[in-house]
């Protein structure tokens, strides 16, 4: 890796340098504070970097080369499912009929686009076993928000004012945040000794005030919630619903359907399981699939079929309305449909099998070296921790930083919260056996180094452009603006 220091663009600034020289202004210069109002116009743009075109290009190209993405190497970020984004998805999304369509074009002019929406919705319903589907939500958390609003709308239509949403202690943080944002009170359900929802504790918590439970299956420990049917039945007996966070659907596609388990609403992360790009801020897509009772409340518009073909309908008077402009992240939806069509039914099943096989292959290799706090069988990901390395003063953060020296992105760390010092590894089906072996070798070498030379692990990374950053000082005293002094 290169040794030179990359200066900030501000530090490269030299007075008078420009990328595009413009001719002198030959009309009266407008006064910005007059056209924008005094509050709208900044008194000065200072500091504003003055640099040439080549300096801008080199600066940002170099920074981009120091970035790390799934195109550079293994990115085993547990629960995030950082899988390969097949380039055929990009080719399909770039077809002019898709990417140059005007969003307000009349239905008869965009039958192809409507077919994409209709087909994808039908496939997602088939994969999840839930008959209704809305493709509008723009990300997983947005899907959660939409799903809980849909449940709330159903309850309101029944004249029920239920206040509580139950969330397991191993849940993604977005689950309680979603419930709170939708006006519910959140109650935490404990895990049992095996890392699953504590069914007995749950029985004592569900009552007539429970709106729903939000469960992730397999959960964030990678463990299948084998009581899922009993949990669903318990909730339904009390008139409550079961929401499933579909973040881990990578472990189930083609093998098991949430609808068959008694789930009423599920969101899918197309940017995880369905291979569309993520990271860097999106765009993502978080469609929701729902049971029959919830269909009338789904966002509008949705695609219906009539004698003239497909059309967008607003004819659902109980709908919660729109949750996104136009039809959701259409380009992302095209990519997800491409993935499904490329693989076909058999291919989807094999992908799921490989995701589970890859995780368990890695688990077997790492088990002798890293502690697994919840040893139950895992599907697509496994949560290890730093218990053995703690004996030498080495922590999860040290292990994660050391992996950078081996050219791997670290796994998810310190999540889920039910595990102290969690290292949550999800290889996905993308990685070959050779790559898994390389990763395992790196992890094993780090475990050995933790024992023999803990100081070296503490000081890692050694080979990256920037070594161990002082995250504590950065969080306590954040410097958010460059200044020359």
């Amino acid at each position: 890796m290169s040794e030179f220091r990359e200066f900030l663009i501000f530090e490269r600034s030299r007075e008078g340098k420009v990328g595009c020289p413009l001719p002198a202004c030959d009309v009266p210069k407008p006064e910005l504070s007059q056209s924008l109002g005094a509050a709208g116009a900044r008194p000065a743009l200072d500091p504003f970097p003055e640099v040439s075109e080549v300096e801008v290009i080199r600066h940002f190209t170099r920074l981009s080369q120091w970035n790390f993405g799934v195109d550079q190497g293994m990115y085993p970020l547990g629960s995030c499912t950082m899988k390969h984004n097949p380039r055929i998805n990009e080719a399909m999304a770039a077809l002019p009929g898709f990417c140059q369509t005007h969003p307000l074009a009349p239905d008869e002019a965009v039958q192809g686009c409507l077919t994409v929406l209709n087909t994808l919705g039908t496939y997602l319903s088939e994969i999840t076993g839930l008959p209704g589907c809305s493709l509008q939500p723009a990300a997983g958390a947005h899907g959660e928000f939409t799903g809980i609003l849909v449940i709330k709308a159903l309850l309101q239509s029944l004249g029920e004012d239920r206040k509580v949403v139950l969330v397991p202690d191993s849940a993604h943080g977005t689950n309680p945040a979603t419930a709170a944002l939708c006006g519910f009170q959140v109650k935490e359900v404990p895990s049992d000794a095996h890392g699953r929802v504590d069914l007995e504790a749950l029985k004592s918590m569900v009552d007539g005030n429970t709106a729903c439970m939000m469960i992730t299956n397999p959960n964030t420990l990678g463990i299948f919630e084998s009581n899922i049917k009993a949990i669903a039945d318990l909730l339904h007996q009390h008139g409550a619903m079961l929401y499933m966070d579909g973040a881990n659907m990578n472990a189930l596609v083609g093998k098991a359907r949430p609808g068959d388990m008694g789930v009423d609403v599920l969101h899918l992360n197309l940017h995880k399981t369905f291979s569309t790009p993520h990271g860097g801020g999106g765009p993502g897509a978080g469609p929701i699939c729902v049971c029959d009772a919830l269909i009338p409340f789904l966002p509008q518009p949705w695609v219906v079929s009539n004698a003239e073909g497909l059309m967008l309908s607003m004819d659902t008077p109980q709908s919660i309305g729109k949750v996104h402009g136009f039809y959701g992240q259409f380009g992302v939806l095209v990519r997800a449909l491409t993935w499904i069509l490329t693989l076909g039914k058999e291919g989807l099943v094999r992908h799921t099998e490989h995701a589970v096989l890859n995780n368990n292959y890695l688990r077997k290799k790492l088990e002798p070296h890293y502690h697994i706090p919840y040893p139950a069988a895992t599907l697509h990901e496994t949560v290890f921790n730093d218990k053995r390395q703690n004996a030498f003063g080495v922590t999860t953060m040290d292990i994660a930083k050391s992996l950078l020296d081996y050219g791997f992105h670290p796994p998810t760390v310190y999540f889920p919260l039910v595990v102290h010092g969690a290292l949550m590894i999800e290889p996905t089906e993308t990685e070959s056996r050779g790559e898994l072996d390389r990763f395992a070798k790196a992890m094993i070498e780090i475990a050995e180094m933790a024992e023999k030379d803990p100081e070296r692990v503490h000081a890692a990374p050694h080979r990256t452009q920037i070594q161990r950053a002082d995250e504590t000082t950065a969080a306590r005293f954040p410097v958010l603006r460059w200044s020359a002094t």
Partner: protein
Amino acid sequence: MYPTDYLYTKEHEWLKVTGSEALVGITDHAQDQLGDIVFVELPEVGKTFSAGDEFGTVESVKAVAEVFMPIDAEILETNANLEDEPELVNKDPHNAGWMVKIAISNPDQLKGMMDHAAYAVFVEEESK
């Protein structure tokens, strides 16, 4: 290691009782588990809480943790120093790192809490 005149909870809070008032903070074990603390969020003075309610959050470089009120209480004062120096919770968790001063609503509830020796045993059991 744990002050002998304090009371402790399974959620790793401590209480230092003086008459009808008490100081509340998190234990040395809790701060050690959290790592470097970068932000402490505390409630407003005058707010009331029931036993088991979340009254604040502690953010470390690793995670955000909730802090729970061990007994029914009203907030009399919060430790303003933690705003600029959250690291006080790391450096001196049982003294300078106190979080809130409370009025005790129901002294009977103190009976259910652990003393220093019982808490030390609890921590050891939990870490196994």
